[in-house]
Each structure stands twice: as structure tokens, then as C-alpha cells.
């Protein structure tokens, strides 16, 4: 029955190319794509890392959230490398080495990302300066800063 349903689906979807897209899922997934590690500590490590790695095919999902075949293959890499004793940081840098910052959802300070970290600090500093100047001015004007004179 299942087979028949699939054949019907293929007939409908075939001309649209959807059949082709399904075909890449005809292969069994990588061993650790959908199978958790037996050791719960290692699985927790792997899972935390997978939350912060970006699916390359789906772009706005982590590999933990995505059902894309390639995300499954990336989860397999993460789990089998954790199992082989690599640290999450080593695995992240292995991927960043190949795909750049794009693959990481955990931004690091680098030549291109430093403004993201610097601008908020700069804004806070400006706000601080403005506040200081205003409060300082009031004080020198002789108005009671902490009171109800405002």
C-alpha cells in the first residue's frame, strides 16, 4: 500500500521535479543523523553544539532544527566527532575553517564582526557622557539633582 502511494506520489510529483528532490532522501540517512549518542553527557554536548551550527541548505535554521539531508550529514559529523573525543570547539573551528563565519550561529569577534560588538559599547559610552554632562551642568546650576526640583 505504502509502495503504491509512493508510486502515485512520484507520478504526480515527477514532472514537477519534486520526485527528484525526494530521491536524495531515498538513501538511508547517515548513522548519527537521527540517532542520539548513548552517553547522555556526550549527547548533551553534541546537541548544544548543533544548536549553534547553521544548516547550509536551509540558511535560517540550525542543523538541530533542520530535516534537510545535508543537516543530517552534519549532525552525523558532530556526533561521531564528539564520540571520537573531539571537543565542541574543535568541531566548530573545523567547520568555520571550511565555510567561514557563515556556518556558526555563535558570533566571534573577528576582523569583520568587531563593529557588532563595538557599536553598542560606543553608544553606551556616548549615553554615559551625555548623562554626566547634563547632571554635572544641573549640579553646577545649583539645582538639587536627586530631589523634586525638576
Amino acid at each position, binding site marked *: 500500500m505504502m509502495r503504491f502511494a509512493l508510486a502515485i506520489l512520484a507520478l504526480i510529483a515527477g514532472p514537477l521535479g519534486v520526485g527528484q528532490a525526494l530521491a*536524495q532522501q531515498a538513501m538511508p540517512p547517515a548513522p548519527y543523523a537521527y540517532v542520539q549518542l548513548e552517553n547522555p553527557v556526550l549527547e548533551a554536548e553534541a546537541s548544544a553544539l548543533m544548536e549553534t551550527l547553521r544548516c547550509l541548505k536551509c540558511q535560517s535554521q540550525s542543523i538541530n532544527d533542520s530535516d534537510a539531508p545535508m543537516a543530517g550529514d552534519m549532525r552525523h559529523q558532530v556526533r561521531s566527532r564528539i564520540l571520537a573525543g573531539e571537543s565542541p570547539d574543535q568541531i566548530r573551528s573545523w*567547520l568555520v575553517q571550511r565555510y567561514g563565519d557563515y556556518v556558526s550561529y555563535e558570533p566571534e569577534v573577528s576582523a569583520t564582526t568587531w563593529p557588532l560588538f563595538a557599536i553598542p559599547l560606543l553608544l553606551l559610552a556616548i549615553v554615559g557622557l551625555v548623562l554626566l554632562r547634563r547632571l554635572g551642568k544641573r549640579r553646577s546650576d545649583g539645582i538639587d539633582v536627586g530631589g523634586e526640583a525638576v
Partner: protein
Amino acid sequence: MRIIFAIPLALFLFFAGLAAYMLTQDKAQTIPSQMIEQPLPEFSLQPALDGMPGASKSDFIGGEPRLLNIWASWCLPCIAEAPHLERLKDEGVDIIGIAVRDQPAAVADFLSRYGNPYSRIGADDISALMLEIGASGVPETYVIDAQGNIRYQHIGDVRAETVPLLLEKLEEAR
């Protein structure tokens, strides 16, 4: 003092203008590999179908620069690029194929329909080689020099206008 009240409006106009401009720009859909000018990793892949050899790093060492073509029988753009790979083969280029998440029967069927420009085809069932070389999709084509270094990456299908570009990059890699 008046000018201060214009600042929020100016900021709003700036961001609205920026958004409008960005909407007209192509969204970058490609993720370039950071492995250009790096050596290929060691790998050894089983043949993707009976009657053809698989692929390993040693197949890229010695002789002329080669193309590494990542494809799959389920990939539609791969049908479009087949005749252009055939042209590259006619120019004497050795093309080594990597079939991603594919089955031998499907690979054989694809080759009988659209031609076989490959000297060998390795089966990458779990995208292991793809991830090693920083490939994010199918198809992609890499120029590999005779020392086994990755010299150039072409993302997407090879088109008529890509053929001379790849020939040029192969020449540069000699």
C-alpha cells in the same frame, strides 16, 4: 535646537532608504568554500556504480590539473550541466565525479541518459567529502592541481560560459 527634532526623521529615512535599496539587491545565496589554495583532504570513496573506479585523493596527484565535479542523479541542474561537462571532456580535461547521496542504479540511469564525462566516480553517501572541502550544495566544480591542491571553486551548474573560464583556471593551475 530645531535640528535635533529632525534627527529621528533623518534616521528613519536613512533606514527606509537602506531597506528599499537592499530589496533591489540579489541575495547572496552562495557560501564560498574557505578551502581554496588548501590541499584536498585524504579521502577514499567507493565506486558510485559497477564497472567504474571510485575516487581517492591519490587520483588527483601527478599529470595535469583535473576537475572534481560534485553532482547527483537527483539533482536537476546536473542535467543542465551534463553537455558542458562533455565539452570539457572533449577538450581533454579529466573529470572525476563525486556522486552525493546516490544509488548505483540511479547513477547508471543518469549516465545512460545524459552521457558520462567522468573517468571515475566516488560515492559520497553522507556528504563527508563535501563537508571536508567546504561544498554546500550540488552541483559544484573544483579545479585541483597536480599536487592535489584546491585551486578554484565554481558554485552551481557549469554553463556554456563557464567552460572557457574553467579551461583558463585549469591552465593557471598547471
